[in-house]
Every structure is written in structure tokens, then in C-alpha cells.
């Protein structure tokens, strides 16, 4: 018999409500650091923040794509058992995509960017990073940010911000990004603009 898959939220309704408010705050105040509202263990290479996002947003109506490192039995079991998620290989059909580490721009090219009539059809990218308290600083602005917001990220490759800049040029199309560190998360919606990358 297979081992039992990792469990979900201890108090499903209450825990999901708190973690969603964190995500909503993250998306409406881009680059703000949101703590993880429930302590969850890692599942394979899926870190606690990614687990929290999965348990909060994923269900049988939201096809999920996993990168090669996450595409193992433990993680797939977690998504199937806790979220009833359809796990798919076709990037353009994914509603949410989980990355164990920052992909190359080519690795992001084929995800759904939405279409002119329905820009909300785009894939939301959840990218795991090492830390959101150290690393290179980037200054951001846009809706949700009063003046400017500085974000420190350790774990994004050198191509990411160039990709993110091109992502803005196709607004209202584009992908929204959630950065998932082991102990916190932050969001970069498609409206966020880069002021300076140090």
C-alpha cells in the first residue's frame, strides 16, 4: 500500500480563509511580504508556501502544471488527494503552474497569456525562491503601491526581470507571478512596473 499523502489544512475552512486573505493582500499590494498563515510541511520539493497556495486555490476546475522537479509521485499525490486537481502537461491549458525554481524565459513562453476578450484566462505562475528577505533588490511601482516598493529576492535567475518587463508590454494580457519562499510569499501582478533592478 502506498504511504498516505501529506495532509491539508488542520482546519480547512478557517485556515483557507486566512491564507486567501494573505494572497489577496499580496496581489493587491504587489511585492509586499505576506507571512504564511498556517505552518505546513514541505511535500517533496514543494515548499510550504506553494503547499499553502495549492490548498487555497486549487480544485478540480483548475488544471495544474508542475515543472520536472515537482513532477514526482509525492507531489502529484498531494495535488490529487487534497485538491482533486487535474495535472496536465500542456502548458497553454494550465490555470496554475508551479515551479521548484525560477525557469528560463523560454520555459515561460508557452503558458497561456489570456486573450484580448478574456485576459483573465492566463496562467498564474507560482515560482519558488530561496528567500524574500535577502538577495538582489528591485524597486517596483504600479497599482497597489503608493509610491515605490523595494523587494529583495534570492532565487530568481538573471533573465527573470527582463522577462517580467516584456510581460508588461502585452497588458492587459500577461501572467501574474506569485513568489513562494519557504516562510513567506509575495505577488507580482502583470500591472507591476519595474523602476530599477540593482
Amino acid at each position, binding site marked *: 500500500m502506498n504511504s498516505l499523502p501529506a495532509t491539508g489544512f488542520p482546519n*480547512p*475552512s*478557517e485556515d*483557507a*480563509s*486566512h491564507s*486567501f*486573505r494573505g*494572497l*489577496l*493582500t499580496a*496581489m*493587491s*499590494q504587489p511585492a509586499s511580504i505576506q507571512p504564511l498563515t498556517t505552518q505546513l510541511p514541505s511535500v517533496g520539493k514543494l515548499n510550504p508556501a506553494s503547499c499553502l497556495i495549492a490548498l*487555497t*486555490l*486549487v*480544485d*478540480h*476546475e*483548475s488544471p495544474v502544471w508542475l515543472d520536472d522537479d515537482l513532477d514526482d509521485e509525492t507531489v502529484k499525490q498531494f495535488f490529487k488527494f487534497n485538491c482533486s486537481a487535474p495535472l496536465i502537461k500542456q502548458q497553454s491549458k494550465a*490555470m496554475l503552474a508551479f515551479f521548484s525554481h525560477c525557469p528560463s524565459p523560454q520555459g515561460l513562453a508557452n503558458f497561456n497569456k489570456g486573450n*484580448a*476578450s*478574456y*485576459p*483573465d484566462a492566463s496562467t*498564474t505562475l507560482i515560482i519558488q525562491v530561496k528567500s524574500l528577505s535577502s538577495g538582489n533588490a528591485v524597486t517596483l511601482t504600479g*497599482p*497597489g*503601491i*503608493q509610491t515605490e516598493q523595494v523587494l529583495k529576492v534570492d532565487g530568481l535567475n538573471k533573465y527573470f526581470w527582463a522577462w517580467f518587463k516584456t510581460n508588461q508590454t502585452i*497588458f*492587459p494580457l500577461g501572467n*501574474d507571478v506569485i513568489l513562494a519562499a519557504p516562510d513567506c510569499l509575495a505577488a507580482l*501582478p*502583470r*500591472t507591476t512596473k519595474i523602476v530599477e533592478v540593482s
Partner: protein
Amino acid sequence: MNEIPPKEPLIETIIEPATQIDPNYNFAYLNEQTKKMIRRALLKAVAIPGYQVPFAGREMPMPYGWGTGGVQITASILTPDDVLKVIDQGADDTTNAVSIRKFFQRTAGIATTLNTAAATVIQTRHRIPEQKLQEGQILVYQVPIPEPLRFLEPRETETRKMHAFEDYGLMHVKLYEDISQHGHIATTYAYPVMVENHYVMDPSPIPKFDNPKMNNNPALQLFGAGREKRIYAIPPYTKVVSLDFEDHPFEIQAWDQPCEICGAEDSFLDEVIMDDQGTRMFVCSDSDYCQSRSEVQS
């Protein structure tokens, strides 16, 4: 336009504490899968300010037109720690507001308040509170018709394209027709706004008096249309501009007299008929604003 002065702080803030949840309901009425679906739509709405995200609106235990869209959003964002305020045309004590407040007391055991500053989530029908909102607060609007172009172009396929191409000439023609007929823009509520230089959005039937409050507001503004099954949003600190013309700039309503209860000169006034002789009285539509001003004075 006059700046709205900050309200005097109340001596005590009245919060009705959390109550027991009716055990026959899941927290905040909706099931968890429905909440996930609405939550995904909400994140998209925030990421594309002013764009209408379709969602699989559920039937709620109240008729369409009574705030089913707003209630579904509120149910999906509430946590047990929230303090909820519900207003209808600015007032906490009208049927719609009382019913929705009771609904969440029963199904979410949520703490409630009449005080704007004490609330973390405010569900509103057709007003924005007079008191300035703060960072971290969420304003949930009930929306009847989310598509500002609907009465100009009935086909959804076409209005989707018009939004995509930012083809808003028709809306300007409509406002221009107002000017040619009446000499001024006669639209007084649900006055169209442009969000972050792209999407033209229906601000729900708030009076145009409230439109300037949407611009650069520190609070998150969420809009739910239950019958039409659309969700849209304005993140905090987002540019919201009311449509107008250079020679006919946007203006808000003004009154010749202050509120007859609290004397406010900066708030939206309702006309109340006092008797069958035609006597009338103008009072604040925002009941919390009016009451707290009266308390400070007495």
C-alpha cells in the same frame, strides 16, 4: 471640491462581538470549492484593474438585486477575525443592510460594527462611506449591471472587444448627448470611470459625488454582480478617473444647505419628505457619519 475633514475619533468604538455560528452551515455559508472558484476570480480581478472577470455565481438565499454578488465576495474573503459593516445607501439600519449583517452573524459568527473606522470589511450598496478608508480595509460593492457599455451595445461579444481595443467612443457620445440635450452631463449615478488608463468601468450605482473617493484610495475595492456573474476590482492606490470633456469637466453634486441633523457641509444629502404638505429635510445619507458628528457636538 472641498476636502473631507477627518472625523473626530469616537470615545468608544462599538463592535458587536463574534457570535456562535449556526452549526448547520459551513463558515460564511458557501462551500469551500465555491470559495476557491471565487477566490481565483478575485485574484485575477485585482491583477487586471477594472476588468470584469466571469465567475460561476451561485444561487444565494436572497433574490437577485439584493446583493448576491457582494454577499458571495464577502463570504469568500471573510476570516473569523474580521469585523463586518454593511450599508445600504449609506445607512446601516435599512432592510438590506440589516439582513445581510444578520446573515453573516448567523453563518460566519462574525463580529459586526456600524462604525466605518472599526470595520475591516464593508459591504455596500450604492455609497462609499464619507469617512476616509484606511489601508487594509476592503470595500465590497453590490453591482446590478457591471457592463458600463451594456445599454449602448447589448452584445457581450462586442463589449468584450470594445474593452480590448479601448474603444470607448460610444460612451463619450452618450455623455455628449447629455450635454446637447441638457447643457451639462446629466448622468448623476453609475457615472463611468476609467481605471489605470485602460478599462472603463461601472462604479455601481453610487452617486457621482462618490466617484472622486475611488481614485487613489488606500482600501481595496471589490465589485460583485451576482445575476450577471462578474467580479471586478480596484487595488489600493490606483488611478480612477471619471470620464469628461475639457470644456465640460466632471463635477460632483452640491447642496444649498448643510445636513439638518449634524450640519455637515461635505457629505451626500438625502431628501426626506416630512409630511403631505411638501415639507422636506436634507440629511446625511451616511448614517454612521451623521450620528458620530452629532455625538461629538452634543
